[in-house]
């Protein structure tokens, strides 16, 4: 016979196993909740896919951007006399018109080389400048050119030995001024902004000179073409 003296035992036996029939809509509500839950999961998954694809795209974009930036040299370029020569030669090849006479070609080439070296020499160290100056001294431009060519090219014939010396002295002076200015700045306390500005100014000057030389050469070419 069952002992009914313990109330908690009765609670466990009677209430613990009791069943109460739910209303008719209970299952419909559960089904609806489940559908809503599935929709939420789907949306969440879609958002995750979107987020993942955006992240992948950004990753590839970043990688592409980094590689493109690496191709463009952002730092200061080391310029050597050999590289200058190479560049000058390459530019000569482009600059000399095909219709020019062999003598004319030689004059144009010399003129262009001089202009090019004049523009580049500003950023070169003193030893390099001296070397270039020495090479100028050894040039016998006027002596090598035939008189007919001189008549055809009035701009080129102006490049005489004296002129070369003057230009050389000018560049040496310019370089000396720069050196003095740099030495003065070294004694001052270092300032990032000032250094950056200085570098920018130097770069601007370099590119301006380069552009000017190209522009003058093109101008000459046009003149020759018009004359012909």
């Amino acid at each position, binding site marked *: 016979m069952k*002992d*009914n*003296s*313990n*109330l*908690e*035992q*009765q*609670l*466990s036996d*009677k*209430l*613990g*196993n*009791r*069943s*109460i*029939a*739910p*209303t008719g809509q*209970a*299952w419909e*509500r*559960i*089904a609806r*909740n*489940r559908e809503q*839950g599935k929709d939420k999961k789907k949306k969440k998954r879609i958002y995750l896919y979107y987020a993942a694809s955006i992240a992948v795209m950004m990753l590839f974009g970043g990688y592409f951007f980094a590689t493109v930036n690496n191709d463009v040299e952002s730092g200061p370029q080391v310029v050597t006399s050999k590289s200058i020569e190479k560049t000058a030669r390459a530019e000569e090849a482009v600059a000399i018109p095909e219709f020019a006479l062999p003598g004319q070609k030689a004059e144009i080439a010399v003129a262009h080389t001089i202009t090019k070296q004049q523009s580049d020499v500003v950023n070169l160290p003193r030893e390099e400048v001296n070397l270039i100056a020495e090479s100028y001294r050894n040039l016998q431009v006027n002596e090598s050119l035939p008189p007919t060519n001189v008549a055809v090219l009035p701009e080129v014939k102006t490049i005489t030995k004296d002129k070369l010396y003057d230009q050389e002295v000018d560049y040496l002076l310019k370089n000396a001024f720069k050196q003095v200015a740099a030495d003065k700045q070294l004694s001052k306390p270092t300032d990032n902004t000032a250094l950056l500005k200085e570098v920018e100014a130097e770069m601007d000057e370099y590119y301006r000179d380069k552009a000017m030389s190209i522009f003058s050469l093109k101008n000459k070419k046009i003149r020759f073409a018009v004359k012909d």
Partner: protein
Amino acid sequence: MKIIRLHASDEAVIKKILHGDSRAEKQLYDRYAAKMLGVCRMYIKDLHYAEDVMIQGFTRALDNLGRFRFEGSFEGWLRRIMVRESIDFLRGRTQLYFEDIETAEVPPVDTGGADIDTDLLQILIDRLPEGYRTVLVMFAVEGYSHKEIAEMLGISENTSKSQLFKARKQLQEQLGSLKRMENER
């Protein structure tokens, strides 16, 4: 002779659900909904709220059915979910309040051998404050230890014990007044 199995095991039904069979979901619901509503009703006085909690619990159980490891009984697992849902519901309505009282050993309430009706038992525990009732039901009906109750409710073991002490005391008083009323008749 072909044998038609009318009552598939819980495991078979659950596996069907996990394979996307929505009819199996209904089958599982039909099997346990009434029992689970009974569980929720022990904790929650209002039957409508108890049904809401049962629906919420069932939805959660079906959503997380993949986590059931078939190590214990499915009913026990489902029952545990319902208890947790009921506690969350009471907490959400700030009906669950536990006061610390001096612990004393109070023996289980003696009914004097009387067989108390189920509805009367429900009325008796409905009259108890939420905190007392929750601990009493968890301890006496669900069979949780004070340690488990303390963990589930986020209280200390002593608080759980004191709640049970208070619940028993009040039940004893209620039974005493009921006896007196019967004697007066």
